[in-house]
Structures are given as structure tokens and as C-alpha cells.
């Protein structure tokens, strides 16, 4: 079973939930348990899990390099590039690697065969273990603009569908293409929402992207609840979203998080409801 944890708003507790689900599943005997940190711009699940990272590779996208001698400035590559990563100024073809999506169309289509692909490094992928949990993360290099290819590469490298196991995808915040890339292929998406006007607003955007646009199975976990969840519960009811769990806002939990300690360390009682949540998702899958 593959479960993505996403949110819309940042700081609602995606990583807290993903790490806690991984730990709870491993303790309940689920095997294998894998956690992929796909928040490539700021991966921080490793701070809670403290894994040993044994494997490391850089990843990028293939970007075009134009042979000035062969190029006859027909302009075909510029017309075909939907990312606008190429411009033909008549005397040379300019390439903008930060706009390129690495689709390879220009290279394949060039009538003069004047284009070859060179690697444009975007960041690093790392993998290892934290006890029983297989862990991997993507890290975008500073100044780079495209996290989605790194997310795709990490999933291709380490995501395995297993009928008995559990793979957790810790998505970036927001509702943009990198979130959609992170959640793609998930059997379920848990949206972690905080009961504030900001949390509610961004929850709506995430539902729009992941359920309405992508057709994924989406349900909600409310975090940082202080018992005034009316607005968010109403939203979930009106939009046919199951609320699977409500986690409280408590100073002690926040303090532990700030020290890089997991939720289950300070609230071992949360383990049972987390396992129950996973069972709900599995049951739903078997019924479907």
C-alpha cells in the first residue's frame, strides 16, 4: 500500500504524521516499511528519523546543447519547446537550463541533428535505513528551480509497490506540480490540515489538485486541534472528505518536534490510532 501525506499549507504536520505512521507500522509488524521524503526543497524527515544514509547519487535532467556548426537556424527546436527553454537569435541558439523540463523533443526532432543532450544537475538523492524503516530523500541544489524531476527520480529508484508492506510518500507543501508528482501513484492521500483559516484555505487547494484534478483517493487528518474544528469539519462534510484522525495541539508535542523528537516518543498513546488509520485505508482498498 502506498500512502502519500500532503497538506496544502506548510507546517501542518506532514512529516510528523508520515514519520509516526512509519514507526507505528513497523512496530505493528508491517514489512517492509519505506518512507520517501519528497519535499526536495526542504527535506527534514531525516531529522526525526535519524537514518544512516549509505547510498547517494546526483540527479539531473538532460538539457540540449546546440552544435553551432551544424545548426542552420531553422527554428524547429524553438517552436517545439513548450517550456520556452530555447531561443534562436539568428547567430546562435540560446539554452535556458532552468526552464528546460528535459523532455528531449528538441534533440529527437532537430532536422540537422545538431543537438545533443548534456546532464544538468538538479540535486542529490540519498537512501539508507532507520532501524526497520527503509528511508530515502531528495534534495534540490540551492538556486535550482525544478524539484519535480528529482521527486520522479527518487520514486523510480526506491518506490516499490508491495501488497503487504507500506510505502509513505512525504510530499512538499502547496498544490503545485511537485506535490502532484509526489502523490502520483499513491493508493491513498492523507491531507494534514490545521484548523485555521489558512489551513482550511490551502486544504481546498490541495483537494482540488489531488482529488479533483488527479482523481486520487483523498482523506483528511486534522492536526493541532484545540477542539474548535467546526469550520474544517463542515468543509470536509460538504466535500465528502473522510476525517480519519484528529491530533491535538499540545505544547509538549510542539516542544518535542522542535528538538527533533517524534510524536510517538512523547505520545506513545497515538500509536494505536495510527495503526487503526492504516487498517482503515487497507480495508478501503480491499473493498474497492
Amino acid at each position, binding site marked *: 500500500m502506498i500512502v502519500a501525506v500532503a497538506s496544502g499549507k506548510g507546517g501542518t504536520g506532514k512529516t510528523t504524521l508520515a514519520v509516526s505512521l512509519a514507526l507505528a507500522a513497523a512496530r505493528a509488524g508491517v514489512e517492509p516499511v519505506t518512507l520517501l521524503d519528497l519535499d526536495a526543497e526542504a527535506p527534514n524527515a531525516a531529522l526525526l528519523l535519524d537514518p544512516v544514509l549509505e547510498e547517494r547519487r546526483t540527479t539531473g535532467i538532460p538539457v540540449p546543447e546546440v552544435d553551432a556548426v551544424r545548426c542552420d537556424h531553422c527554428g524547429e527546436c524553438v517552436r517545439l519547446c513548450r*517550456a*520556452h*527553454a530555447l*531561443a*534562436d*537569435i*539568428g547567430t546562435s541558439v*540560446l539554452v*535556458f537550463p532552468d*526552464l528546460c523540463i528535459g523532455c528531449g523533443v528538441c534533440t529527437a526532432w532537430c532536422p540537422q541533428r545538431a543537438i545533443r543532450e548534456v546532464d544538468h544537475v538538479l540535486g542529490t538523492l540519498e537512501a539508507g535505513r532507520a532501524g526497520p524503516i527503509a528511508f530515502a530523500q531528495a534534495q534540490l541544489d540551492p538556486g535550482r528551480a525544478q524539484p519535480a524531476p528529482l521527486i520522479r527520480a527518487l520514486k523510480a529508484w526506491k518506490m516499490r509497490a508491495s501488497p503487504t508492506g507500506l510505502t509513505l510518500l512525504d510530499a512538499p507543501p502547496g498544490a503545485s506540480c511537485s506535490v502532484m508528482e509526489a502523490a502520483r501513484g499513491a493508493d491513498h492521500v492523507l491531507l494534514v490540515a490545521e484548523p485555521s483559516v489558512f489551513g482550511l484555505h490551502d486544504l481546498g487547494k490541495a483537494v482540488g489538485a489531488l482529488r479533483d484534478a488527479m482523481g486520487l483517493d483523498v482523506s483528511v487528518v486534522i492536526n493541532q486541534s484545540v477542539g474548535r474544528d467546526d469550520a474544517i469539519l463542515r468543509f470536509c462534510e460538504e466535500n465528502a472528505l473522510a476525517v480519519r484522525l484528529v491530533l491535538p495541539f499540545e505544547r509538549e508535542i510542539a516542544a518535542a518536534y522542535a528538538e527533533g523528537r517524534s510524536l510517538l516518543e512523547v505520545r506513545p498513546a497515538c500509536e494505536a490510532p495510527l495503526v487503526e488509520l492504516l487498517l482503515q485505508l487497507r480495508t478501503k482498498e480491499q473493498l474497492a
Partner: protein
Amino acid sequence: MKIAVASNGPHWSSDVADVFGRSPYFLVFDEEAGSAQVVANPGAGITSGSGVGAAQLLLDHGVDLLAAPKVGPQAHKVLSEGGVRFCFCKGMQARAALKEARREETV
């Protein structure tokens, strides 16, 4: 010489656009022919790459001089290496921007 003005609308009474790449129209004035052309910018609404696309559009139309507000670094590279000169203008009608560009050019 061809002069392009980044414009919010298709008329010379329209306001100059706020951002070059997302400018909905370019009004192109051909000094030799004494004629004008409205060029719609197909990339006005895209999320990324609009500046480079708009710069290529102007090169394809043989523009020599651009009257526009802020031009992003990538579009600037395409335009300047493509031999297009700039006239910075903001908060005025396209007609006034054209006048301004022609005046600067003759100084």
C-alpha cells in the same frame, strides 16, 4: 526600424503592460512602412518561460527597439544578444511610450 510596445490592450490608448513577458499584446510600429501591427502574446498566461517566449516572438517580428517596463534576466539575454535595444517606460499609454522610445532613439 520596428518599435514594439508591451501593452495591456490592443490599442494605442491601452496602458503599457506591467511585466514584459506577461504582456498581453505587443503593438509593433514600422517606421519605414508607417504602419502598425497588433501582435498577441500567446505566452501571457503561462507559468514559466513567458519572457523567453515573448522575446523570441519579437525577434521573429524583426523588432529593433522595445518599449517596456521590467524585463526579466532571461528575456533580457535573448533580446540584447538578438540586437534589440530597450526603452524603459511605465505607467503611461502605449501611444506615449512609442513617442518616448522614438524621442530617445533620436537623441
